[in-house]
């Protein structure tokens, strides 16, 4: 069977919001993963380093964890925030 993607491409166009969404997520993914290259980081540390809102970092970091890019490290000394590192 041939590829069916060409059939849907003739009927529908990719919306601008989908294109933008892909760009935004990829940019965020690259930035967040880069912060953890040297050592594990907590969400507030990443947010501060990237100057991004905390909730935006939380959402993307948890999504990256779900997709298997990140793993949980340990809790901080105050038992408040987890550290996260890149999945080896």
């Amino acid at each position, binding site marked *: *069977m041939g*590829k*069916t*993607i060409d*059939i*849907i*491409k003739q009927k*529908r166009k*990719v*919306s601008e919001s*989908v*294109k933008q*969404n*892909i760009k935004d*997520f*990829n940019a965020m993914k690259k930035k967040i993963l880069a912060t953890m290259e040297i050592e594990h980081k*907590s*969400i*507030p540390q990443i*947010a501060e380093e990237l100057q991004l809102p*905390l*909730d935006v*970092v*939380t*959402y*993307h*970091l*948890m*999504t990256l*964890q*779900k*997709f298997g890019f990140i793993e*949980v490290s340990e*809790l901080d000394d105050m*038992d*408040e*925030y*987890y550290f996260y590192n890149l999945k080896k």
Partner: protein
Amino acid sequence: MIKSEEYDVLVIGGGISGAEASINLANQGFKVLIVEKDLSVGGKMIHLSKVFPTLDCSACITTPKISQTARHPNITIYTYSQVNDIEKKSEHNFQAIVTRYPRYVKEEDCTGCQICEEKCPVVVNDQYQYDLVGRKAVYVPFSIANPRVAAIDIENCSFCGACEKACPSEAIDFSQEKIDIQINVKSVVIATGFRLFDPLLIPRYGFGKYKNVITAMQMERQLVPTRPFNHVLRPKDGKMPDKIAYVLCAGSRDETIGNPICSQVCCMYSVKQAQLLMGALPLADITIYYLNIRSFGKGFNEFYQQAKDMGVNFIKGKIGKITETDNGNLLLRYEDIIEGVVKEAKHDLVVLSVGILANQGISSMFKDTLELDPFNYIKQSDELANPAKTTIRGVYVAGTASGPMDIPDSILSAGAASAEIAGYLRLRR
């Protein structure tokens, strides 16, 4: 030409009530068609952590029943489908149109391996995790979905074709289109469940504005093994909460938002979550702000007392307003009903115990007049003697489609519906 199929019973809705009614009928030899609008059967119950007051695992109860439904030789299930134009032609003779929407994945070929998900570049909110994390545009709805088959969210697809290229079983099929099927049945069961109250309708609670104000369903997801986060965490900053507040009657018993009735389950699911949280976060303080605790069922009052004994703090208070203070913490302004004074309390996470509402658009599926009660639930024409009977003879109602109720009552209601249908169908035999 439109395809035509025949069954004894059409069950609208594949949640716990629909599954229970279907199994009961199928075991008696009746051919049943379940039509479910979602991608998976299991309804809301399959997404819950535990059930009250026994604290049994919800998924462990739901999945065997759903699996039994899916494997039963007398049951056919159409997921991602909708029923329209149900018309009673004569006694024991209903005709309906079922529209099957395209998943763009061949159900019979997909193995649920999720390789397509890895390749998909699009990330959107995961509705099955109540928007706490993202999912791909091609996705298996959730790990215990039935059928465990991928689907493509075509509105958010980038049409890159990566999923089709990667699929080892060649299950991706973008040529699929919606199909209408004419269904002829002898009886109909409405098991369409409920919808959750949208807390955006009460702006003073700050839901949507303050990320650390969440719904009880979002907390429920945080308490299941397939949770969106690695632990129970605040959505704003990933902090482990240690002072959690529950706001009861959020969207129930409130004339101002059009739902004056009690949702029947919010008190007990909040008490349940409080107990589970004390296990997950042993150092956390949990406060439940309530108007009245309605612990009316078997073992409910003992369950409530158990929560008190565990250290859950109960305050009879009406929340006026929630505002965000420092570090995402929240200030609750409330009327202490016992003392008759207005007080304020600081919490670091607020859970809104949202109520349940009638699903809309059910009566419009029927060409005949299906009457609703004053709260838009399906009207039971003979509530005491024949609780499953509706205002159309041959059409029955099961579970929360007839009004708010908990899981055991929903299952009982489905049992009553199946018994009444069996009686109705045997009149013809």
